[in-house]
């Protein structure tokens, strides 16, 4: 299935602003992040700690709604979903 990945701020500098990934059906948010980590070592280093746990400053949106990385990484993705990856917000 086709998933659009958007990256912002420091993660945009590593991954580029947007990219399309093709994942197996029933792939989860975690599967997608692992795919990105495998493709881009710099992303793996930035997003995961030494134990392979997602760092707490990695924030995620699926279809423009925030998800909780402590609970929702096993969430299955759907064809055409959009996943946004970004660091803590700093507007204003």
């Amino acid at each position: 299935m086709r998933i659009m990945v958007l990256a912002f701020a420091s993660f945009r500098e590593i991954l580029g602003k947007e990219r399309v990934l093709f994942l197996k059906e029933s792939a989860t948010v975690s599967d997608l992040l692992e795919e990105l980590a495998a493709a881009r070592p710099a992303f793996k280093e930035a997003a995961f700690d030494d134990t392979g746990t997602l760092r707490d400053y990695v924030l995620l949106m699926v279809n423009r709604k925030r998800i909780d990385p402590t609970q929702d990484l096993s969430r299955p993705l759907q064809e055409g979903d959009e996943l946004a990856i970004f660091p803590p917000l700093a507007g204003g």
Partner: protein
Amino acid sequence: MIQITETEISLDEMIKRARSKDAGAMVTFLGTVRDDGMERIEVEAFREAALMELEAIQEEAMSRFHLIAAEVVHRTGTLAVGESILAIVCSAAHREEAFSGCRYIIEELKKRAPLWKKELGEKCERWVGQTST
């Protein structure tokens, strides 16, 4: 009006739009680039998501504080020290509601709107609010 723009903010235009014969108070907030030892900043937005979030915050503020109007304009792009990043204008029948609504919008914007700032100097650059990457 909610706006994310690369062009300069006109506080006068925002005040004009927020004026009303029913308003007895208008509160404005202008966020500017502080000199924290850098030369300029870059402001980046997840535009579509940020507009949605700002519209939600605006509606909440209008409803909670009985505002007559609430205007929010956020800059993106490269800004020099002293330039305006963000302007908020709230009008209400009385000053208490206008102050509270303006305060609510800036505090919620900082927590919820997908916007980021990168400080750029001669020798270093860093994303604001991020410990590393």
